[in-house]
């Protein structure tokens, strides 16, 4: 039983990170129907920039964190502005192929600058995050993952539900032509969703890096894991992305703990295939409201 709960906690905390990065992915998809294949690279980029800001530039942790997040946001904004905007109006497959190219480019750039070795981030988490009660122990990184996950989900939930900009973003996802006719700045919404997605990706990159050390290949592989997560949760549901992330995280932890660590990466996909047979929209995907 102890082992079970320990696995559950580990799985949930990793799941929050998957959910967070999937959320950014879903946001881009919802507003502009683009599948972003460069998501894992954005994760890795966040982690490496943080590493350099901390250990090379020697910024204090807090500032390094803030600077990384701001940098990621700006980068997402710029990617939209310079790479995606010229392709507005072109067939979607061009845009998707562009993100594949962007992924290759970013990965090359990361390898060029930081090399392919595994690096470790300094452990900076405060001691109070280390929770130990009886047999249950939650290491600080896992605690941080849970806290950051919950915090960001609540923040974005409120943002989309109540803020004007959040409502504009949802209106563009819903009916782009109508949004345009009311003067919603559709291109700004696209840029904003890329910015937010990159920010959230960078954030999950940092924490994943704290957990397992950072290497370009490992972190960009997490980008691929976003796919079972979002398809499980439904491609256009942000809360679905989070719950999908939690499910995949827990599944991985249990497979690793009870079956064999080498099956960890396979089981999510098996579950995915089975689930798609039953619910092709994903667990929380939009079922079309159809008026007959």
């Amino acid at each position, binding site marked *: 039983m102890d082992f079970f709960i320990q696995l559950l906690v580990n799985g949930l905390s990793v799941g929050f990170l998957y959910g967070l990065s999937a959320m950014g992915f879903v946001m881009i998809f919802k507003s502009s129907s683009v599948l972003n294949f460069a998501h894992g690279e954005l994760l890795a980029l966040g982690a490496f920039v943080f590493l350099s800001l901390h250990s090379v530039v020697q910024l204090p942790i807090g500032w390094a964190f803030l600077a990384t997040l701001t940098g990621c946001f700006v980068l997402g904004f710029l990617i939209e502005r310079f790479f995606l905007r010229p392709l507005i109006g072109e067939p979607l497959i061009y845009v998707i192929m562009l993100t594949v190219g962007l992924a290759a480019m970013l990965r090359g750039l990361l390898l060029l600058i930081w090399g392919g070795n595994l690096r470790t981030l300094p452990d900076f988490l405060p001691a109070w995050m280390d929770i130990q009660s009886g047999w249950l122990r939650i290491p600080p990184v896992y605690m941080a993952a849970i806290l950051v996950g919950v915090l960001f989900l609540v923040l974005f939930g409120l943002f989309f539900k109540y803020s004007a900009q959040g409502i504009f973003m949802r209106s563009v996802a819903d009916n782009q032509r*109508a949004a345009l006719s009311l003067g919603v700045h559709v291109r700004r919404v696209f840029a904003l969703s890329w910015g937010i997605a990159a920010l959230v990706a960078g954030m999950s990159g940092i924490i994943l890096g704290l957990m397992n050390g950072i290497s370009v290949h490992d972190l960009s592989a997490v980008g691929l894991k976003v796919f079972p997560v979002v398809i499980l949760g439904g491609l256009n549901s942000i809360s679905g992305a989070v719950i999908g992330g939690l499910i995949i995280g827990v599944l991985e932890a249990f497979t690793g703990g009870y079956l064999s660590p080498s099956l960890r990466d396979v089981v999510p996909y098996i579950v995915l295939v089975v689930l798609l047979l039953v619910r092709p929209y994903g667990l929380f995907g939009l079922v079309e409201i159809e008026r007959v």
Partner: protein
Amino acid sequence: MEDTLLEINNISVVYADVIQVLKGVSLQVPNRRIVSLLGSNGAGKTTTLKAVSGLLKPENGRVTDGAILYEGHPLENRSPEQITRLGIIQVLEGRQPFKYLTIEENLRVGTATRWGKPYRKDLELVYHYFPVLWDRRKALAGYCSGGELQMLVMGRALMAHPKLLLLDEPSLGLAPLVVEEIFRIIARINGEQQTTIILVEQNARIALEIAHYGYVMENGKIVMEGASETLKDNPDVKEFYLGGGGAGGPGAYQQPKSYRRRKRWL
């Protein structure tokens, strides 16, 4: 005529660089009046509206010739973001609500052109014109009826404080009673809010009822224009758009030969 708010001079519109839809359309919209644009399907009414509102661009259409002057400023081929901020809002054909947003959220999107300014008063105004929306304000738009949705999209446009409102077929697919109610409200908005309105309609009878002036379009050209009263009495308009009148009167089909009146303007 009174001062002109919008003047369209001889514009041509081409889609995808090859398909010419408008061939020299000119019209004038006086300030604070309702001008209705009549004509059959494919005549170019919607395209004319889109040329004004800038929504041609995302559909790969372009104004190739002529000029659109709004308060003296040229509008041709400017982006919808700019044009809406000048106070021109188009209400699209077929309603187009944001299905997964609630009624009130839908209305809030209408404030996009003046983002960050207070909007409580405008919500009250919209609920005053369309009390049904107040009752349904927490409901998802996707689950509302056609009449409610038409009111919703008109209310959404009102939230933007339009000076010029472009209404594209507000009566489409609605029950006659609802149509009457909606047109009554359009006339009230025009009178009380001083909003200038261009009204595109298939339902010529009710459109001419509330409009001050009318244009008839066919094949991408304006073929007739005049004050609503004049148009209503015109035998050609009667025959082709109002039904009845003209050739033979009632029972024309029972006569051995029923001649279709020739369109005089062609």
